[in-house]
């Protein structure tokens, strides 16, 4: 008997205002003692719903509509709340993406451990046990005395992990535990997690949309699409030969940025709408190998070469053979998808005219605490130039001063010393660090921003047409029908066609990728010279990141824009940028043409960033991504 047995589980959302949505459909799987299983898929494929259903944490309008879950011999679908309470956390614990926010802000970390022990009547010295647990997740014992707000996101997430392991559970559900943290922190948490599992031997169900991290960590991988499991096989096998076209598509988003030629691919389209009934295979609309039979026959999950796959073409062995893990194969894989993002191109920034120059800029923040004042240099002596038609990537961890530089360039803040000069306008050169009021507003027409979170960058109560009409009215003097027509053109220029379908929509009716396109269209509306993109893809699904990168790259070339691309992800920098600046604690540690900086990194910090990138192929090619030590 396996530790966790899920049989024919179905979950349906029945909201009052929308049609019912079968988020999880007839899912069966087993997890053995100590096994590390990854659950993969884009957002909206039912992964988290499945995870929550296993823990019986679903809240209305979601309901389990069929099947059963049994854990260690106990039927969880039938168990009452009291029985569940005994099991949860003791044998079955969890860490969510937002777990760092689940720490109680008004009590110290130690007290949160004490609560956990008290709730489950664990005897013994709380401090000793809590210290031991913190050591497990590589945190200092001083953290015990801290309040949650005194800790960074990564530290809080580690505390959440320590709490999840506090009662030595048999199974830990990790739902996107490192999404939203930056690459270096993510790497250190994952490394620690792998070590812990070896030491303590708990089983893990690891839910993520990031195939790179899952493949590195897991023994076995299950891929979910449209509420169904479409592939289930050992992680090594998935790397060697993924059998479902969807898995292949997901793998296409990864590449080693250090290779001389880097290609990624993406899966066009979005997951299916589960509130409608579909005939045939759910992936047909996005599948490059779809045949006539796929449109009419719904495939079953059948054994196939040491795993399970739900694909007619693969089951009949007519899927083109691809061996992953080599650059050539990866290129071949990309070509299976019609919209390969051929983003890699030689950098030639020499002939581009400077648009904005940052010269020896330092930004000091002074804070007063009681009688003492302390000052922090967020940016130290940074100099660089943004040029027409060129993408400059600013790479660094969170807290390295990237966003401060963006604020200095946009005039939101002023540097303590140094100059920011804008030379791209029609008039005389501007000293951005001296602008105020009206002049600052006029300057912003030339410098526009693309935000990190497409969900908060658009006002939820305003239509797309309104969002686009504002810059047009303020900077181009367009109103009424003229503005609407221009807004439609802008939408089509960012790939939202036909525009008429989008103009009168509200943001919540669009997907994350579509919203980011709208945000981009709004930034283009005043015809700026400089575009600042602050982590524009980090909140998006891995499968559509390349799509947005491709769009940004095209826009830069087409409009001859200077772009500052802010990121912690060197792979995307490698794909998009002509020049790279690596920022560590406010100081530029390395800069130059992208290929040179990334291909032959000289600085230790740059190498650390490179090593932290999740790279599923590292396992296959035997070159393990070395931990951050």
């Amino acid at each position: 008997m396996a530790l966790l047995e899920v049989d024919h589980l179905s979950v349906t959302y029945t909201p009052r205002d929308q049609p019912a949505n079968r988020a999880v459909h007839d899912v069966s799987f087993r997890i053995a003692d100590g096994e590390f299983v990854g659950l993969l898929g884009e957002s909206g494929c039912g992964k988290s719903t499945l995870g929550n259903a296993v823990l019986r944490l679903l809240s209305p309008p979601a309901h389990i509509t069929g099947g059963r879950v049994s854990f260690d011999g106990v039927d969880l679908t039938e168990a009452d709340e009291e029985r569940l309470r005994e099991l949860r956390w003791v044998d079955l614990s969890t860490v969510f993406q937002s777990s760092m926010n689940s720490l109680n802000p008004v009590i110290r970390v130690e007290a949160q451990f004490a609560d956990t022990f008290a709730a489950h009547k664990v005897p013994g010295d709380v401090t000793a046990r809590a210290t031991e647990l913190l050591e497990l997740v590589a945190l200092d014992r001083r953290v015990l005395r801290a309040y949650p707000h005194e800790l960074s996101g990564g530290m809080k997430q580690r505390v959440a992990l320590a709490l999840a392991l506090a009662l030595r559970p048999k199974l830990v559900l990790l739902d996107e535990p490192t999404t939203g943290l930056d690459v270096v922190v993510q790497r250190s948490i994952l490394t620690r997690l792998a070590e812990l599992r070896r030491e303590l031997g708990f089983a893990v169900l690891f839910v993520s949309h990031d195939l790179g991290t899952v493949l590195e960590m897991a023994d076995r991988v299950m891929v979910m699409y449209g509420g169904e499991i479409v592939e289930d096989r050992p992680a090594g096998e998935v790397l060697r030969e993924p059998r479902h076209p969807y898995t292949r598509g997901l793998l296409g988003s990864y590449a080693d940025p250090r290779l001389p030629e880097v290609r990624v691919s993406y899966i066009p389209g979005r997951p299916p709408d589960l509130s409608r009934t579909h005939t045939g295979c759910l992936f047909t609309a996005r599948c490059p190998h779809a045949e006539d039979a796929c449109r009419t026959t719904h495939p079953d999950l059948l054994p196939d070469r040491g795993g399970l796959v739900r694909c007619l073409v693969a089951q009949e062995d007519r899927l083109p053979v691809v061996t992953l893990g080599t650059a050539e194969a990866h290129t071949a894989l990309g070509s299976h998808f019609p919209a390969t993002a051929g983003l890699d191109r030689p950098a030639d920034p020499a002939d581009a005219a400077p648009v904005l120059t940052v010269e020896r800029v330092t930004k000091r923040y002074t804070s007063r605490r009681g009688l003492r004042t302390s000052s922090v240099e967020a940016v130290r002596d940074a100099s660089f130039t943004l040029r027409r038609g060129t993408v400059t990537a600013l790479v660094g961890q969170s807290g390295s001063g990237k966003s401060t530089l963006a604020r200095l360039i946009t005039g939101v803040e002023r540097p303590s010393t140094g100059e920011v000069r804008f030379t791209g306008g029609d008039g005389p050169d501007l000293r951005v660090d001296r602008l105020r009021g009206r002049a600052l507003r006029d300057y912003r027409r030339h410098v526009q921003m693309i935000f990190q979170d497409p969900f908060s960058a658009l006002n939820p109560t305003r239509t797309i047409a309104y969002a686009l009409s504002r810059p047009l009215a303020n900077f181009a003097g367009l109103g009424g029908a003229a503005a609407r027509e221009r807004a439609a053109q802008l939408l089509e220029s960012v790939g939202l066609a036909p525009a008429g379908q989008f103009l009168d929509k509200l943001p919540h009716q669009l997907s994350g990728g579509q919203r980011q396109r709208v945000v981009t269209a709004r930034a283009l509306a005043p015809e700026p010279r400089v575009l600042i993109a602050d982590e524009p893809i980090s909140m998006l699904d891995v499968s559509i990141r390349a799509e947005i990168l491709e769009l940004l790259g095209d826009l830069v070339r087409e409009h001859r824009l200077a772009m500052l691309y802010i990121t912690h992800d060197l792979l995307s920098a490698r794909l998009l940028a002509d020049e790279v600046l690596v920022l560590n604690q406010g100081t530029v540690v390395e800069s130059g043409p992208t290929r040179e900086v990334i291909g032959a990194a000289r600085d230790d910090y740059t190498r650390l960033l490179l090593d932290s990138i999740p790279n599923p192929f590292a396992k296959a090619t035997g070159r393990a991504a070395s931990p951050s030590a």
Partner: protein
Amino acid sequence: MSTPAPAVPAPGTDTEGVQAAATAVARTTRLPGWFVILWRNRKCRIGLLMLAAFVLLAVFAPLLAPYDPHEDAFPTSLGPTGSHWLGTTAQGEDVLSQLVVGARTSMLVGLAAGVLSTLIGLVIGLTAGFVGGWVDEVLSFLINLGLVVPALPLMVTLAAYAPVRGIWLIIVVISVTGWAYGARIKRSQVITLRTRDYVTAARFAGDGTARIIAREIVPNMTSLIVLGFMGAALAAIGGEAGLAFLGLGDPLTVSWGAMLNQASLGGAMLTGQWAWLIAPGLALSLLITSFTLINFGIDALSNPHLRED
């Protein structure tokens, strides 16, 4: 204006737009969304029906009242009889007619003072929260002052010493003493909203502060504003009744508070005229109850999680 989307997307094309269109079509109700949500909540439905009854009563008061409320030719201090269902006052006026016409005063005061104090609170709260800095310091000081000054004594003083009398004086007095609470809540809400990316984006789009507040921020706090209005209207109705009961109301206006005042002065308790005493009190409590019930529904409006069951 959206064009109908094809039902089946061609393979390989973008399926996103089609799905968004499908979800939009799935909404079949013709009533506005906010009303549907309010109506679904049982408590709120009862509240809406009660309020509707009071509104109808107030609007059609002259038709519904059996007599002129100021007509004092009837026998004095009658108990409930066939021709005077709730009896007559010590001056010989019909209590039922006064009750019906008095609904107009309460409704008018609730509406006008509610709107006025919501507006004051909105302007001060939004400006303080959005602009920040010394403007916030000054306005927050005013808000705090408004919160700690005891409202009833201030109301009584203002009403007692004002050179004019009348229902509008009462409305103004209630508004200037009752805006602070709403302003404080709105200020806190704006502080959380003003750091949203879309506000920054509006700045980059060249919008000015006033426009950002009116077009980007206010629409995101509708439910809070409605909630604030309900609270202010409730307090205003209670405040008017209190002032009138203390004899500080307009002597020429018929209101439930004034009725209570006269019942007390006219010795309704001693003469056993329970109807004269209880009717206006009960009407007030029912009106206030209806507002409270509606607020349950407004909670669901601002928090989608409360809509499900």
